[in-house]
Every structure is written in C-alpha cells, then in structure tokens.
C-alpha cells in the first residue's frame, strides 16, 4: 500500500471525477461527498509519501513497472517526489479540500444545474496539478499541464459574466501558446539528449563537463520552456490574461485557480531549473540572473502599482498575484551561494497559496453577500460580517508581511537572499511592495471598519444598544456568511498564521532538499 502512494495521489481525484461524471447527474447530492473523499485520500497519500521522503529520501515510482531493472531509464514514466514537491502536494491537497468545502452550496448557485460537471472539472484540475507536481517526465508534464489548463479554461468560462468568457478566450490563446512553447523546448531537449526523463536529461546535460549543455539549442530549449512557464504563471510581461480571467470567473473557480495554478507553475519552473538544467548550468553557464531579477523587480512594482489603481476588490487581488509571482521568480533567480533566495521562493509558494486562498475566499464572500465588487461598497462590513473580515484581515496582513503570518517570513527569507546575493534592487522592491500593500489594504480596512464616509461629529451614542450607530449605509440585511464558507476561510487564516509561526521546520525541510542541488553545481 505505502509504495503506491505516489500513484494514489493522482488517481484518487481521477476516479472521483469519473464517479461524479457517471453518477452525479442522477443525484447532485453525491457529488460533494465523492469530491471530499477523493481529495482526502490524496491528502492522506501526500502526507504518507512526504513522511517516506523525510525518512528515506526521494521516492521514485515507475508507471507500468518499467523501472531501471526491467528497462532503461526513461522508457517508462517516472514519478518522483522529494521534500519540496512533497510539501507542494500537501498544500495542493489542503487547498483543494478547503475550496471544495467552500463550494458546497456555491457551486450549485453559480453553475445552475451543471454542478456535476463543475465537480468533474474541479477534480480533473486537481489531477492535473497533482500530476504536474509529481511527474519526473518532461513530456508527461506537458500533458498534465494541458489537463489542468483545459479544465481551468472551462471553469473560468462557466460563469455568467460575459467578460469572463472573453477572458477565458484570451487565456486559451495565451495558455496554448505557452504550453506549445514548453512542448517545443522539451522537443529541443529531446533532440539533444534523446530522453524525456528529467533526471536522465540532467545527467546527459552535465555529463563530460557539460559539453552538451553548452550547445545553443539547449539554451534555446531553456528559453522556450521558461517563456512557456512564465505565460502559465503570469510573470510580468506575460501576465495579461490573468486579472480578467480570475476576477470574472465564478468565485469557486477563482478560489481554486488563483492559489494553485500560478504557484504550481512556479514550482515547475524551479524544478526545471534545478532538476533538469541544474544550478550550475542556470546560474553559472547561462548567468542571466541579473536580467531575470530585474524583470522580477519590474513585475513586483508593476503588480503593486496596478493593484493600487484598481477599484474592484477581486481585480486588485489579481494584480497582487502578479506581484507575488514576481517575488517567487525573483527569489528563485537570486542565486546567492547558500540558496536563501531559492528557499524563500519555495517557502513563498506554500505561503502564497494560503494567503491568496484566504483573500479570495473572503473576497468572494464579500462580493456575493453585499454585491460589493468595488472597494467603496465595503462600508461597515466589519460590523456586519466580523468573521469574514477577520479572515480577510489575516490574509491581508500576510500579504503586507506583518509577523507572525507566513507572508512576513517568506519575505524575510527572500530579503535575506537579496542581501546575500547583492540584489539590493530586489530588496527595495520587496519593501516598496509591502508598503504599497499596506496602503492598499488599510484603505479597505478603513472603509470596512468605519463605513464609507466619515461619521458626523464624534458619534457619541446612547449606550451599547446602538453600537451599529454611525455606520449603517449598507442595507442591514447583510449578515454573516454561511458556515460552509466560513470554515474554510478560518481554517485558511489559521494556516496562514501557523505556517508563519512554525516556519522553522518547513524551512529546515526545504533547506535539506535544496542543499544537495546547490552542492552539485559547486
């Protein structure tokens, strides 16, 4: 049983999707339990495999049994789990479970009788994301990228907003071009190395002093793969599809896509950088880290400033994602000799998934409950929806980087990487973006706390009975959200804090995983 965990992680949601597809349309009520159970199995398997990795190092699983004894490396497809993607797997499982709980009633409302199809797509999306994370085969990665992309196109286009449909169309074009670039890069690599297994490619590229790695076509392959992934993760110049797609998607779709898609793409980028090309090749041979870090700096600043210009809550969050992607890409490319930037980037993948989830769930509740697409409509929300706003505030504080939330610690490690590698511009960008985020969110807090317009006079009220007093601009009918949406919100908020407080062990795991990768390069 235990040695089947890597396959089970991917297969559980797949079978879940098939069951929902077969039986869901007869009775919509069975959808949710199936989704929950299959994701829970995935979570269980992820935890199990993660423990195995901690005990005995990376775990390999050869599909169809074509391991190196029976055949040659790369003949079959290998799943490979080390400490880093073990962590990412757990994050994916937890996030998707939380979103599925969030979607219990939402999905039915937003997708009008297409609930089973929604859940099929939802589960297939998680299949794709899980698969992208575990696979060690460059081409298999492409297939799984497409599984997750196709489902996310549909999840976005399912909504009723016509702007969402247009956004989905742009996303399809961009996403397909991105995936094709990736595929092309893999083709170039295959042409030069004759294999598709990532470990094998790495072996060939570094063999004999890395002579094959120095050929121009390998460089072109890297560029193609990188650009393809950048499109997927919405890195700075290629982010155009993201804000509209995520903000006009149905809220449940937005909540699953925003935390996971970009983050997993960043993880894949890191995996390609370290696992396929290798530290030494990327930072030593290629040496573009300065250019990419500058690009990341621009991404951070552009994302933050554009977020500042938004008046719609969800769009603002979407631009923040663009900035956060800049954090991660920049951190991964800092290339300080001890790999602190890389550590920070990986930790930020985990942290940002939960931060984004927290904010998106809260924003979705707010948008739904009080029809508040815009920031100004949030007046007095703190009084009416205190629990939701608490979750929102915790997510926001994490985005700003206030201790003890995880956002603070990831920034901490990223800044350390920036200082050690001498990329002061990156440090400055991180701090500036923190400050902009502070402005951004406190603008909202102020409105949510005190209403839209300043109260007249001092607001002296008669005792406790009229505490709502000077705020009431919104209709009083707005009440706290449902329990099924609050529970995931609060759990996420708790994780945001706990992940920050207990960053030590997480960082230790990440460090132990990336240190050998750095050492290989020397």
């Amino acid at each position, binding site marked *: 049983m235990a040695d089947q965990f890597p396959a089970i992680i991917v*297969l559980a949601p797949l079978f879940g999707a098939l069951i929902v597809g077969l039986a869901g349309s007869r009775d919509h009520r069975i959808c949710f339990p199936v989704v929950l159970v299959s994701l829970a199995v995935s979570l269980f398997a992820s935890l199990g495999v993660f423990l195995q990795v901690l005990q005995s190092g990376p775990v390999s699983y050869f599909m169809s049994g074509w391991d190196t004894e029976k055949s*040659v490396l790369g003949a079959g497809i290998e799943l490979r789990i080390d400490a880093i993607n073990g962590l990412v797997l757990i994050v994916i499982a937890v996030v998707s479970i939380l979103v599925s709980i969030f979607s219990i009633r939402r999905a039915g409302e937003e997708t009008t009788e297409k609930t089973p199809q*929604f859940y099929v797509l939802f589960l297939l999306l998680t299949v794709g994301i899980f698969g992208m994370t575990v696979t060690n085969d460059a081409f298999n990665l492409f297939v799984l990228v497409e599984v997750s992309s196709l489902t996310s196109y*549909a999840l976005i286009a399912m909504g009723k907003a016509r702007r969402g449909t247009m956004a989905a169309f742009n996303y399809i074009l961009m996403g397909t071009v991105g995936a094709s670039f990736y595929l092309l890069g893999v083709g170039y690599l295959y042409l030069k190395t004759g294999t598709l297994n990532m470990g094998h490619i790495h*072996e060939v590229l570094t063999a*004999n002093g890395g002579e094959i790695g120095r050929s121009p076509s390998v460089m072109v392959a890297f560029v193609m793969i990188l650009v393809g992934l950048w499109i997927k993760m919405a890195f700075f110049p290629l982010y155009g599809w993201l804000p509209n797609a995520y903000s006009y998607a149905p809220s449940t779709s937005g909540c699953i896509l925003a935390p996971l898609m970009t983050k997993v793409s960043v993880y894949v980028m890191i995996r390609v950088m370290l696992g396929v090309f290798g530290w030494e090749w990327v930072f030593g041979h290629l040496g573009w880290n300065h250019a990419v870090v500058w690009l990341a700096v621009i991404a951070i600043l552009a994302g933050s400033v554009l977020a500042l210009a938004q008046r719609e809550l969800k769009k603002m969050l979407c631009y923040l994602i663009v900035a956060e992607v800049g954090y991660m890409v920049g951190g991964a490319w800092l290339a300080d000799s001890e790999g602190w930037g890389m550590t920070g980037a990986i930790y930020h993948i985990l942290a940002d998934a939960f931060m984004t989830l927290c904010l998106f769930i809260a924003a979705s509740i707010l948008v739904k409950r009080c029809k508040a697409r815009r920031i100004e409509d949030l007046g007095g929300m703190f009084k009416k929806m205190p629990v939701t706003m608490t979750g929102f505030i915790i997510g926001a504080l994490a985005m700003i980087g206030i201790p003890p939330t995880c956002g603070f610690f990831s920034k901490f490690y990223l800044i350390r990487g920036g200082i050690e590698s001498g990329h002061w511009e990156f440090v400055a960008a991180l701090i500036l973006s923190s400050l902009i985020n502070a402005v951004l969110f406190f603008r909202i807090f102020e409105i949510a706390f005190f209403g839209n317009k300043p109260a007249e006079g001092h607001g002296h009220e008669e005792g406790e009975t009229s505490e709502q007093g000077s705020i009431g601009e919104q209709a009083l009918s707005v009440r706290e959200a449902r329990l099924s949406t609050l529970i995931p919100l609060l759990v996420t908020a708790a994780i945001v804090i706990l992940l920050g407080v207990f960053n030590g062990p997480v960082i230790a795991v990440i460090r132990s995983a990336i240190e050998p990768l750095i050492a290989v390069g020397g």
Partner: protein
Amino acid sequence: MKWFALIAVVITGSLLIYGVSDFPDWGDAQSPANAGAKSSTGEPIGESVSQFYITETGRLTHVPNLVTAVLADYRGYDTMFETVVIFAAGMAIFAILRVLREDKHTLGPPAKDTTADGDHGRIIVGTTCKILIPVIQLFSLYVVAHGHYSPGGGFQGGVMLGASFILLAVAKDLGSALTWFTEKRFMTLACVGILIYAGFGLMAQFLQRHFLDYGVLHVILPKTDEVMARSHSMLGVEIGVAFTVTAIMFAIYANLSSRGELKRGL
C-alpha cells in the same frame, strides 16, 4: 498590435533558427534522439530509449506495432491522461455551452431549416449514408482491434466511430442521431472509457504491482503469461480509449452544432 506581433514573431523565429543551427542533420540515424546521447568522444551517456523500444519491445510485449506498444504500455500513463484531456474537453464544452433550461434570452436565432434542400437531396444523401455508415463503423472497429499489428488504435478508431455518428447527424439531422446516441449514453460512455483504462491500471495495483503494470494481469486473464498479458491488456485499454474518443467527438459536434441545445443541428 501588428508591430508588436511582428517583433514577437521575428524574435521568436530567429531564436528558434539559432537553435536549429546545431541540430543534427535531418534523418540522421545516429542523432541523440534516435540513438541516445553521446559525448564528444563517442561514449554513450546512459542508454538510448528509442533503441530500447525498437530492440526489446518484441521480447517484452509481443506487440509488433512499436507505436502502439509505447503508447499503451511504456507511456501508458501519458496516454491515460491524453484520454482524460479529451474527456475534460467534453466536460468543458458541456459546462460552457450546454443550455439546460429553456431560457428565451440565451436562445440564438433559430437554425436554418434544413428541409429547404428538398426531398431529392434527402433521399440520395440518406441512402448513401445508410450504406456508408455501417462500413465506417465496421472499419473503425477493425482499426481499434488491429492496432497491435498495423497503424491504428483506440484514438484513430474512436475518431472514425465518432465520425460515423457525426455523419448521421450531418446527413439527416442531429435529432435522429441523438435518438439512439443520447446525451446520457455518450456522457456515460466517455466515463466508462476512462474507467476501463484506469481500471486496468488499478487491477495491477491490487495485485501488488505498480499502476498500469499489465504483466501481472496474467493471473486474471486466461491462458496468458506475463508478456501476453501485456499485449492483451493493451487491447483492453485501446478499447477504453476508443469509447471515450467516440463519445466526446460526437459530444463536441453535438454541442457546437446546436449551440448547446442538443435539438436542431446545423
């Protein structure tokens, strides 16, 4: 936009050409892709996957068609997700287009009345289809079943089978194609196809092997050994693929041609 496109195209194109410049010659049997990577001194780095496929497949699987063997066995995991992609596309189109409630606003202009061609056209087309469709279907089944020995397999056969239903819908109308191949049926068939595929994998797991390790299925399949079990299981998964592809091809056509209403076709 045009200028931007031009710049993007020129940059990408020249980058790609730059990469092409040190490719091995076209058709070179000794290129890394075909014979494995070699260092400048001519020593092989690792073993060549491609040569392994060509030389060992016969021994390991008894399947003459290497493409089928690689597709359904060595890279069977890939192929399963390929089928999932198709399935996902079907679901996606359903989710985007399908109109489940009669909603006056979402109804587009009514499709053109196809009877305008007159009855003569109907008779000729109808008779031709009556003859052609069974032949197509029969041939597609052959393509699926004979994938081990000749070009073919689940995808090719499935597309042809789907095409035969589409032909019916084009020739007569969508409604008559849907009377037999109802939405419920093709959606179920799509799921069942993947279930068959993944089920083979799962069975191997239950028998203490890795996912999709068909060899172990010889304990279930009668009169087989490890190698023949692989061959037979490949046929099984190809049939699963064919199910899904047939169903989804038709589903895509049906939804697209009727704007998701599944009533009138083109």
